[in-house]
């Protein structure tokens, strides 16, 4: 008897619920892609839902590659990626796909040299040489000349890189490809590469653990992870010749420096940007991948509205989560691009 009553109540509730949803015009959007911006995306989607209770965006952080594939297979409404889609991928897609930068990420060099606590300066040549396996000792002139006053030991350098395919790796090797022709021809850039030397650690935490535990190690780590874990790290020389330490301001400055020469489709690498003394050179956008045409007008309007909110009000949430904000030049340009979505 009691069960019957409970069942009736449940049935009524369920019926009421269905009606409410139908009347509210619930819009459900599915998205998938990059893991690096997942914390800020989930915060944005949550905040946006609080302001617009009828919009729900499900985001699965399955990785950039998976995001691009699912978008091309049309199993999601939009995708997200740490690296821009290639020309070939864009050609394969049935609908033209637009790139929208959302936030910025950066890589920092972290190291563990016994007896050295100073913040080291790294030139592009030194970083490329170390990762190519040509500079093997910490007291190599390429390193010591940029660090006067620091006594570096003759220990072997143990190179550490990410083992998992990742946007963090993409930024790092994209930078090395720009500053070293040898890297460009021998290794190239992708989310995983054929590393000339080194040990692979899984995830930022894996690289950080290996660097921390191995005397003489150097590894690259995503800036947010380094900030949140209070790690110390080195400065890198930018194209203007200044050694810059990565922080949210210097990363945004890199985007601003690149904004002048930004192509209309936003598929741009901002590593080693020219003519900006404040810019940190190993940084990148991460993108949302939005189809140019939506068959569903409601979804289209929601996406456009969300994008506008994301690059304006949404940017206020970035710093709390240690993401670098988009510079205003880029925001203005994106506003124009949003109008293109049909």
């Amino acid at each position, binding site marked *: 008897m009691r069960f019957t009553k409970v069942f009736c109540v449940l049935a009524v509730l369920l019926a009421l619920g269905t009606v409410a949803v139908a009347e509210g015009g619930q819009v459900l959007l599915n998205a998938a892609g990059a893991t690096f911006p997942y914390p800020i995306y989930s915060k944005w989607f949550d905040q946006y839902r609080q302001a617009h209770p009828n919009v729900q965006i499900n985001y699965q952080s399955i990785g950039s590659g998976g995001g691009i594939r699912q978008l091309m297979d049309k199993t999601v409404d939009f995708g997200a990626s740490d690296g821009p889609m290639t020309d070939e991928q864009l050609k394969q897609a049935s609908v033209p796909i637009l790139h929208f930068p959302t936030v910025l990420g950066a890589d920092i060099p972290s190291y563990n040299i016994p007896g050295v606590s100073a913040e080291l300066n790294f030139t592009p040549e030194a970083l490329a040489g170390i990762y190519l396996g040509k500079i093997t000792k910490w007291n190599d002139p390429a390193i010591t000349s940029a660090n006067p006053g620091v006594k570096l030991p003759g220990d072997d350098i143990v190179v550490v890189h990410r*083992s998992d395919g990742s946007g963090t790796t993409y930024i790092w090797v994209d930078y090395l490809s720009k500053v070293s022709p040898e890297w460009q021809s021998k290794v190239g*850039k992708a989310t*995983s590469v054929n590393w000339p030397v080194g040990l692979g650690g899984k995830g930022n935490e*894996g690289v950080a653990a290996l660097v921390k535990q*191995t005397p003489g190690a150097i590894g690259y780590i995503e800036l947010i992870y380094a900030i949140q874990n209070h790690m110390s790290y080195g400065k890198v020389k930018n194209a203007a010749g200044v050694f810059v330490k990565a922080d949210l301001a210097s990363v945004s400055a890199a985007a601003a420096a690149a904004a002048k020469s930004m192509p209309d489709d936003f598929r741009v690498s901002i590593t080693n940007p020219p003519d900006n003394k404040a810019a940190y050179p190993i940084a990148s956008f991460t993108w949302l991948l939005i189809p140019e045409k939506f068959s569903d007008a409601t979804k289209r309007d929601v996406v456009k509205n969300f994008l506008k909110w994301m690059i304006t009000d949404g940017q206020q949430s970035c710093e709390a989560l240690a993401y670098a904000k988009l510079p205003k030049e880029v925001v203005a340009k994106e506003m124009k691009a949003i109008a293109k979505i049909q």
Partner: protein
Amino acid sequence: MATTPNAATPAELAWSPRALLRRLGNADEIAHLVTLIAAATLLLITALLVFQLWVHSAEARAKFGWSFFVTRTWDPVSGEFGALPFIYGTLVTSAVALVIAVPLGVGGAIFLAELAPPKLSSSLTFVSDLLAAVPSVIYGLLGVFLLVPLMRTTIQPVLKKTLGFLPLFQGPAYGIGFLTAGIVLAIMVVPFVLSVSREVLLAVPRDQREAALALGATKWESTWKVVVPAARIGIFGSVFLALARALGETMAVTMVIGNNPTISGSLFSPGYSIAAVLANEFSEATGNLYLSALIELGLVLFLLTFVLNGLARLLILVTTARGSGVLPT
């Protein structure tokens, strides 16, 4: 009735709907059907798995052919893929794991089944079963934060000093690499060897022990010469189970193996295993050839497991045919 010319043969009769229904009234028939479906489903899942791996690896198979098995390069940028370093790493780490885990597991099982007081035996078995239930990522984390520093500062230098003349223990000691991965795997598979072996040893009939003792054998002689040979097949079985687990282990291995596709004779060297590269690169793999090559690696792992299992079964057949000791069937 049976003599009329156009009556159904008994075999045909057995599958006519009415006969089937009648037979289903019988509990034995139902049990037969249900278990048959269960077994067939298992086979079907395996077949589907292989089929999917085969279909989706078509592009890589067409491009690389058999050279996939002997190529050492893995370069996602230039689209050149070979499985050799990964096959090597998978085999080496699994071998290290078995070399450590089998003596430990079988030795422990003999103690628990034959020599230990029953109370101690059951509580120790419980602890070992608990080990089997720990998620592999926990082993990986323990490996990274405890074992790796210990290996680098203590175990590897000691091995270098004592056994450094062997090519196995040369080269720089990073703390990670084949040996560390093998040790973590060994810790993970010991409970399988121990638990299954203990059960099998306990299942050896009491008469056999008593007969051996009555003939004047000591306790150890009866254990080593009668009980263990009698339980041999089951013990082999536990080792295969451990091997299968070691071959396919992903998370714990990738955290301590160094993830570098090198082929080196030294166990101190960093390496890579098939399961680890799949876990690392699958999610961010862009491009069809890259994805296809990763799926072909999955196929290779399946093949490897298949071949090793086949070889192991052959080994049992050969040793059983020679027939030392009576085997409980």
